[in-house]
């Protein structure tokens, strides 16, 4: 929540809390994204024909549900300064595993459990390579991105499994009675609460921030860095597998190429939501707002008959602007603050 200048503990807290609470609350990247979201929704409702109807919310939430789900563990991973690029492929693999198991005559419920186990094992594999072997997560998960996708395509080839129990495929798209909100939002909200508590209100969560700010300092203050990261990668695998089962049911189709490129949409939402790619900074409400914002923008632009290339350009520009704006603001704040600081701190921030 505070502006982190990346220096010592004392300088991190004091300038951030020098201002009144409401200013600290409002002048954050998270608030900026939420404000932008409200603005875009308002503008789109008025100007884009067909946007301001209840069904929009249904399609929007169905579309972004996998992104919202995976963004939760991804936020935690990126706060530690790591990254998981394999989640999109894990969605595909979990989808294919569900499909192959159902095709082999296993009941859907059991197939889903197998897929979740595959997710945990895949996540643990990532975690093992990152923590025990000590490889950089970027390299490891680029590798498993290809590996999981390869397994998925290898298991099913170019065919698709489409024979899923109708009760489940209907449930995946069902709406909560009296609203246009799809049922998938129920597990999402439960997971959201779990992850908010985990990240913002437990010692484990403080450890995640500590790792992102300084791995060594975290280790010296008693945080089990390896164990924390290992658990996070396993969580990412598990949630990605769950998203894969939802994906399969929503489209009624298990295919090796399901959710190709989803990891980039997730990471875009996480970064736009104010999580620093260097770790140590970010909050879940910003990430959720950013995921919804990206969904709203593409939904509104599609309704305005704007092609997918332009939608990608708009999302990309938004992402770049948000990153640039954050670092520019950071510099401005630092240069404004400098005169009032003790010399020692000035020297350390000026570098």
């Amino acid at each position, binding site marked *: *929540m505070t502006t982190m200048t990346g220096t010592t503990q004392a300088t991190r807290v004091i300038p951030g809390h020098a201002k009144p609470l409401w200013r600290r609350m409002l002048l954050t990247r998270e608030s900026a994204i939420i404000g932008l979201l409200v603005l875009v*929704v308002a503008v789109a409702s008025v100007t884009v024909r067909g946007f301001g*109807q*209840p*069904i929009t919310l249904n399609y929007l939430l169905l579309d972004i549900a996998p992104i919202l789900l995976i963004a939760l563990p991804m936020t935690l991973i990126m706060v530690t300064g790591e990254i998981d690029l394999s989640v999109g492929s894990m969605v595909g693999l979990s989808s294919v595993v569900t499909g192959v198991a159902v095709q082999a005559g296993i009941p859907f419920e059991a197939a889903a459990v197998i897929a979740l186990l595959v997710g945990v094992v895949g996540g643990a594999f990532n975690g093992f390579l990152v923590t025990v072997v000590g490889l950089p997560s970027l390299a490891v998960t680029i590798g498993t991105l290809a590996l999981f996708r390869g397994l998925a395509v290898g298991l099913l080839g170019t065919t698709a499994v489409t024979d899923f129990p109708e009760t489940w495929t209907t449930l995946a798209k069902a709406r909560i009675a009296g609203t246009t909100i799809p049922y998938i939002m129920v597990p999402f909200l439960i997971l959201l609460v779990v992850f908010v508590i985990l990240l*913002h209100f437990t010692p484990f969560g403080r450890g995640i921030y500590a790792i992102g700010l300084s791995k060594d300092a975290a280790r010296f203050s008693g945080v089990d860095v390896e164990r924390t990261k290992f658990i996070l990668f396993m969580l990412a695998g598990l949630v990605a597998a769950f998203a894969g089962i939802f994906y399969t049911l929503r489209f009624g189709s298990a295919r090796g190429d399901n959710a190709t490129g989803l990891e980039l949409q997730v990471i875009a939402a996480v970064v736009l939501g104010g999580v620093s790619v260097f770790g140590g900074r970010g909050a879940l*409400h910003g990430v959720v707002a950013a995921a919804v914002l990206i969904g709203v923008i593409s939904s509104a632009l*599609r309704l305005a008959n704007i092609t997918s290339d332009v939608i990608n350009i708009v999302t990309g520009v938004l992402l770049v602007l948000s990153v640039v704006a954050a670092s520019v603001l950071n510099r401005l704040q630092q240069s404004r603050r400098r005169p009032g600081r003790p010399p020692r701190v000035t020297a350390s921030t000026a570098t």
Partner: protein
Amino acid sequence: MTFARKRVAAIAAVAVTAALTLAGCADTGSGGSPTDGAGGDSENLSITFLPKNLGNPYFDTSSKGGTAAVEEFGGTFNEVGPAEATPDAQVSYINTATQQGVGALVVSANDPNAICDALNEARDAGVKVVTFDSDTNPDCRDLFINQATAEGIAKIQVDLIAEQIGDEGEIAILSASANATNQNAWIEDMKQLLADEHPNITLVEVVYGDDDDQTSFDKTAALLQSHPNLKGIISPTTVGIAAAARYLSTSDFKGKVALTGLGTPNQMREYVEDGTVTAFALWNPEDLGYLAAWAAKALITGEITGAEGDTFEAGKLGSYEVGPDATVLLGDPYVFDADNIGDFDF
């Protein structure tokens, strides 16, 4: 102290997010639908084309035909689509068309099942659904515009080769993979036609290039080695015919061994221009898009419902009749030769 305040801040922030989400629902709920009544309207001639993906010359050509048709009957044409040919990406665009309340959606499906539910939701909202090029399950669309039948494809290739070699001599077939369903069905039909109507033509061998350029190239070379009297090759696959043409164009057999089959103008242009290939076949995607747009219009106006035996007018292409399974056949495959290949870019 500071920690406690941060907790308060975080809780407040989450609450704000939740409130906004809920406010969003309320907002969209009370906004009313500006498109109410647009769906299912017999005057709503707004037609949206949703190809497998954008930036694909084949679909650029079909959309060109669609645009021409929509202009002729005075509707609104739109083309939308994903950058990559995946069914999940198509679903978003189908949903968008439902929200917009377009008159009809003309789709080339990336998966016969995955987009089914989305299409049916669109139909429930009054949108007419026409598939072309690649069909969905018949119960998720109102009409399928079929580009060609297996018999038609087999016949045109046999006719072309018979004409090019003077209706007698040895021919061979260069197919895709040995278990390609489409190709095998066509080859069976071709064998039947050769036996029934062209007794002087002998089919000496069927080889498989696995739809791989290099394999097809090598198989062509091997065919010409092992059958010195070979007069013609049929390749019912676009990869095979292009590879065979490349081999022939640089060999001594150029102009002596005829080559025909199914190809695309862009791949075959240089071989038609240098005389390696006289003529080859495929359907015309421009006509396909043109017919699909007219069929969509006929559905919107209620002229047809998709029942077998319904007839409708399709501009310059004339009158069409709906066949079994709500399918309309474009007609015989289209023959490309030196005279017309310049008109196509796909």
